[in-house]
């Protein structure tokens, strides 16, 4: 007797809609590919040490070839290895920033929306202050004050990012808190903290996750921007922003490969996160599904 597969995607479910979105699907495949290349970089390249920063001057500025498909940089390091190791930092910067911003912003927004009153007012004015600055400028200021490093860059960007999630979470909470099931929970004496965690959080997560998916690409771009101006990852380690920054100096003198490939990597990854985010948004919203 044949057994039914244990895992099946129900027709009409969110996942089913997501998998029907070709752009989102290709994007997801691309992102998985990049993530695997980053995670398994030491096993995938013969130049793992160069990916970590060791020079090989014999290959200085080697143009793309079979040995070095994306060429080599000014210290002779294989650009494929640098890109793979750089992906670890670039991707993780994007993900950590968004997760941290979510982790900080969502609870704050929920508390503001649920409790209302002066607490809401105070929290929202604080977010206003943060949102009044152009995000990249504020991140640059914070990163410059903290000192240039990978961790400080992540901290700086996350510090400018959480208010968006606080606003989103607050708006969602405002609409959810009037629902009957919340009323019911409150009437049987469930404590506020439990209501927020058990009943509100699960019901506002969808738009937050959609926003998060859309934001990862932007966060990677901002992180690359900080690295580009020297406030992110420090030598000899690489991320894509650093690679573009180092490589662009040699663009006019004919070593086009140094910044082109990391530039493409950022471009494609940011775009993939956007397509994926769009796909998740459509799949999660019954009103938009008709567009598929």
């Amino acid at each position, binding site marked *: 007797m044949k057994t039914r597969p244990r895992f099946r995607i129900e027709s009409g479910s969110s996942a089913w809609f997501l998998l029907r979105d070709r752009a989102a699907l290709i994007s997801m495949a691309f992102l998985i590919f990049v993530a695997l290349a980053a995670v398994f970089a030491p096993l995938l390249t013969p130049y793992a040490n160069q990916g970590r920063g060791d020079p090989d001057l014999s290959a200085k500025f080697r143009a793309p070839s079979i040995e070095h498909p994306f060429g080599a940089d000014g210290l002779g390091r294989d650009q494929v290895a640098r890109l793979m190791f750089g992906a670890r930092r670039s991707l993780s910067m994007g993900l950590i920033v968004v997760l941290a911003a979510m982790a900080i912003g969502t609870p704050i927004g929920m508390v503001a929306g649920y409790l209302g009153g002066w607490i809401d007012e105070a929290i929202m004015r604080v977010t206003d202050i943060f949102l009044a600055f152009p995000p990249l400028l504020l991140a640059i200021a914070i990163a410059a004050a903290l000192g*240039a490093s990978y961790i400080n860059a992540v901290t700086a960007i996350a510090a400018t990012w959480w208010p968006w999630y606080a606003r989103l979470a607050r708006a969602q909470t405002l609409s959810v808190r009037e629902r009957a099931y919340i009323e019911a929970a409150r009437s049987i004496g469930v404590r506020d903290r439990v209501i927020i965690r058990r009943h509100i959080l699960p019901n506002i997560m969808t738009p937050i996750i959609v926003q998060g998916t859309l934001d990862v690409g932007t966060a990677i771009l901002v992180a690359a921007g900080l690295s580009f101006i020297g406030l992110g990852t420090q*030598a*000899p380690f690489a991320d894509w922003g650093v690679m573009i920054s180092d490589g662009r*100096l*040699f663009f*006019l*003198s004919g070593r086009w490969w140094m910044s082109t490939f990391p530039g493409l990597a950022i471009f494609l990854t940011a775009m993939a996160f956007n397509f994926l985010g769009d796909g998740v948004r459509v799949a999660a919203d019954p009103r938009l599904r008709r567009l598929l």
Partner: protein
Amino acid sequence: MKRFMFILLSIAILALPLMTTVAQDRNVFVYGHPVAFPNLDPSSGNSNENVVMGNVYETLTFYNAPGSAEILSPKLAVSWEASEDSLTWTFNLREGVTFHDGAALNAEAVKKALDRTITIGEGSAWIFGSIASIEAVDELVVQFNLSYAAPLDLILSAGYAAWIMSPNAADQDSAWFNDGNAAGTGPYMIASNEPGQRMILEANPDYWGGWSEGQFDTIVYEIVEDPIVLEQMIRSGDADFTYSLPFDNYGPLAGADGVSVVVTPSFQNLLILLNTVKEPTSSQLVRQALSYSFPYADVVSSLYAGLGTQARGPIPANMWGHGAELMQFSQDLDKARELLAEAGYPDGGFDLVYTHVAADLDEQQVGELWRASLAEIGVDLEIRGLAWQAQWDLALNDPANAQDAFGFYWWPDYITPNSWLTGMFVSEDEPFFNLSYYGNPQFDALVQAAATTSGSDRAAAEAMYVDAQRLLLDDAAAIYVVDLPDIHVIRDDVSGYVNNPGYPHVVFFYDLSR
């Protein structure tokens, strides 16, 4: 109304080429300069504004480019002589020279200008340490009385602090100069200054040297910090001159149309100052081990594209006082391991922090190459790119918590070996540029003795400088990386350019024509 606007726009568009032609009628030279001019006060300015000073102000004597028949030539002074003991110097001034503000150059003006610099006592004013008093003996005769023998003719040719400003300007404070005011005797006058952006000089019609056809009327310094933009400007002809491009780009650039790359020896070198007061680099053995760990050959041949030479001690090879017979470190990792073991670090096992100017890719890559070598002897190097001021502050605040290794360029205030040794290694109560925090009384005494002897007996002074460097090398207070060349890029249609390393990156526009 619409038609009126259209006609107006058409006229404007048609007039554009005309306007450019008018601009081209004036002979304009554009210097794409990589850094701003921090202090335009001729007394205390001690940095990159020297490229302006050299055209707006003049010195009594002029240091000639290497290869000239004489070391010095007359400038504001036409002749000079020293007493036998070199303690009294008399300078005869050029007749008929006026400052930009109309004041006449005379002995009183020279005395007032130099007294101002000595009184302010900032920047490179230390080079006048030997001067006890200045006297205006006659309208055009000025006499210097020294407290110890010193080569004053050479000192007065310095590219810092030795500029003569008008008596009216000498009454002003630094803020006045930094507002873009100036009054020197030079061939050019400051016409406008937008700090950090652009400075424009116009020819001084009353210049004592006179003017001839083809010389430049207007000089524009475009401050552009991004080397890639500078390279674009020089390639396209938007700039006539620039420097400070990545070393690896000069090769391809030399083949570009309309551009020449001029490589000449300079007096600049790159060192890595080692922290002599903080563990583990406080140990002489550790510092020696670090000196043996450095990949000199790779850095010189690859990073500097073979254009520099490995340094041998702090004083570069083209400067008197350089010790060609001194020992020179080369990379020897076994020796480095032995020394580390002797110092109590048999497998390395410590971390070091190397700081460099964040925008300086050369210094960064020096760190990256060194880091790979250090890893082989069990030492981990953290490379930290900082703004220059932040890097310097870190070194000044508390030596015990400062960086272990400091990427550091040096070039002399006036052309003397003393500049390197006094500036970087003579003991300082409060650190300023002695950022190894090196303190060795025997070394201090030798350098002091050499400085006071150099005016009367150069050979004896030279021997003392070499002995002093021997102490430094033994103490391994720094890693002597590379003696750098001057590399300048200039458009081919400009003629008359000769690099003078005595005045780093100064283009003497008066000598040029198109």
